[in-house]
């Protein structure tokens, strides 16, 4: 496949995944900010995870829920807004539409057309959850259609690669930001607030029910971290993402990706053979910082191996 095409497929999927992740984060943060009104910490979480806190605070001294919502959802000026993620996903798809099924293209183009309508009508606290649900569903549809209609060749693999690199990066970042937030927060009586914080984190990665099913026990940082870092059966855990990436890379044709495959296997092996005790003995924050670096490096090596036009 043309390197340029592979790059577009990869970024198309990353952008769709990023749109979904941002929608999840916003959804949970808005709910949390209702839970204890007056605190701005929860509103800052999605900004911290997407690395946009500085830019946002330059424009708005005081974060209000409606401003954060607009900034990350529909603002055409915010590079990482959901609107811009969808726009870029569609632009990438436009380049590679020859490579994808008709349904796939129609889905992405349709999502973009609807996103423009959302941008025109704007959001308020009443329509926000409808919009965020819509984003999640369009992302589910994107993956469902690619699974259901695409030939299992490199086109499919590069798109999957984008999805799981982005997802791994997102899970690690959310976990990292939340861990810091809870550490810096004031200790609460009986850790009631901590409970809500960890529950919110689980919800933002669709893991609340999974947690209940897996542990049938109270929510503790160790269990949450184990679920989201090490469990292979949790679809948004780092381990699950690395399992997928490892698989995908072994299916891509040719010998160009040896460096990428080696690095992915290394990270995957580390996650497979680590225990949560190891991670906590090293310090959860340090471990997460290390994992975020690993994933970033993996992204760079993938670019270098397949995507860059040399």
């Amino acid at each position, binding site marked *: 496949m*043309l390197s340029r095409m592979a790059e577009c497929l990869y970024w198309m999927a990353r952008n769709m995944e990023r749109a979904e992740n941002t929608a999840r984060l916003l959804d949970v943060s808005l709910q949390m900010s209702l839970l204890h009104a007056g605190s701005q910490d929860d509103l800052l979480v999605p900004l911290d995870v997407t690395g946009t806190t500085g830019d946002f605070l330059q424009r708005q001294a005081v974060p209000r829920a409606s401003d954060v919502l607009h900034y990350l959802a529909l603002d055409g000026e915010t590079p990482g807004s959901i609107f811009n993620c969808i726009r870029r996903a569609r632009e990438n798809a436009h380049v590679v539409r*020859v490579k994808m099924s008709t349904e796939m293209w129609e889905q992405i*183009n349709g999502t973009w057309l609807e996103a423009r309508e959302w941008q025109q009508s704007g959001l308020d606290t009443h329509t926000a959850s409808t919009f965020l649900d819509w984003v999640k569903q369009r992302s589910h549809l994107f993956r469902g259609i690619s699974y259901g209609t695409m030939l299992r060749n490199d086109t499919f693999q590069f798109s999957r690669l984008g999805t799981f690199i982005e997802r791994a990066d997102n899970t690690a970042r959310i976990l990292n930001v939340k861990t810091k937030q809870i550490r810096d927060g004031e200790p609460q009586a009986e850790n009631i607030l901590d409970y809500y914080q960890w529950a919110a984190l689980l919800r933002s990665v669709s893991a609340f029910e999974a947690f209940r099913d897996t542990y049938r026990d109270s929510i503790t940082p160790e269990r949450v971290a184990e679920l989201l870092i090490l469990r292979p059966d949790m679809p948004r855990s780092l381990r699950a993402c690395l399992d997928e990436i490892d698989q995908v890379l072994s299916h891509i044709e040719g010998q160009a990706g040896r460096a990428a495959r080696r690095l992915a296997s290394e990270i995957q092996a580390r996650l497979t053979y680590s225990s949560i005790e190891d991670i906590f003995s090293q310090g959860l924050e340090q471990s997460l910082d290390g994992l975020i670096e690993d994933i970033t490096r993996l992204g760079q090596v993938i670019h270098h191996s397949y995507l860059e036009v040399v």
Partner: protein
Amino acid sequence: MHAIKPLDLSHYDEMLSQHGTRSAYRHFAHWLHQAPFDWLQHKQAEADALFRRVGITFAVYGDESGAERLIPFDTIPRIISASEWKTLEAGCIQRVSALNRFLHDIYHQQEILKAGIIPPEQILTNAGYQLAMQGIDLPRQVYAHIAGVDIIRHSDGGFYVLEDNLRTPSGVSYMLENRKMMMRLFPELFARYDITPVEHYPNLLLDTLRAVAPAEAGNPTVVVLTPGQYNSAYFEHAFLASQMGVELVEGQDLFVKHGHVYMRTTTGAQRVDVIYRRLDDDYLDPLVFNADSMLGVPGLMSVYRQGRVSVCNAVGTGVADDKSIYPYVPEMIRFYLGEEPILHNVPTWQLRKPDDLAYVLEHLAELVVKEVHGAGGYGMLVGPAASRAEIENYRARIVADPANFIAQPTLSLSTCPTFVEAGIAPRHIDLRPFVLSGKKVQLVAGGLTRVALRAGSLVVNSSQGGGTKDTWILQEETAC
């Protein structure tokens, strides 16, 4: 039931004659009369929604708001009888064969210039003439592998060729998509009519391209070269690449090494044998042509001149579809093929000739004047539709550089019933069949019918608000 506007006898109507409905349209007209108007409206809206969803769009230069616009699609087909098609087909094959012979000749022995049929300066100083092509032998001596011949029907009922498009003719994707749309909207019509299929065009195109690969390429790799997704015809480039199952590349994907052209892929460099380029000559190779071009491939021309890659259409075909060369095409047919032209040319005044110039300047209000190198309906004067000031402006431009213009009588393009806001009314149309030249010269039975949607307008170009119709070639002489 709804009324169809009465016939205007100043031009030929494809459906109605003085004696009633023409035979090719007999069954269709009956069907149309019976179809409830709001149902037809509903079908028209369905077509628009589908085209938008599929993203069959067209970028219009200089139009920010409509950066991606739909070409209006009209649901009423243009129908051509089997015998008329036979004439059109033979005429197109004859014409394109002669044009390819002409191109080979002027880039080799230049017999036609020696015979005094075309003044040499008309060729040698022509902007479309590429000195770099002189003496280069091309596979099968084909230059214009894909040609779009623009044809109109005059009030006398005869077909006339308006122009030959031999560089990068576009529109074939609409021919194919329009057919798909019609079959989806009105399956009952296809069950009743015996309409010649067009869907195999991409196969023929791929055969054509592979047939002109360099001899050394055993199993040739074909690519489509596009200027990129902001080009007005990008949809078509992507569509054709996908239909042929070949890569759609941009200049940045290709590079030249050790005398061959390669593309960059995820598994490394892969050799390319045939480039179906949808990029003008000037942008192909910054080392030879426009040095500022970021769209081309440095070194491509040197590989091409050594015969190690084929470029389709060939470099330098522009000299044959120039409007100043157009008047000589009938002579080319006689000279190279020893045949009489099957399709007429439109009478053309060449303003570089003093007599022609004098006549045209006196009759500007009646004539259509075009720039010699113009395309897409830009920069032309339609005398009868122009204001006095527009005519005077244009006159000044002509006087400043007469050789840059030709003039033709205002043709009465035929009309075809068309779905408009007020109902169904006649609108002017033309026809562009696509002629493929590889192992042999052939075309699928069909073409792109363009329609001027404004009442009375003669400008059918999509860049000027024209629309398109499906074009039906009947297999049997009379509709079943």
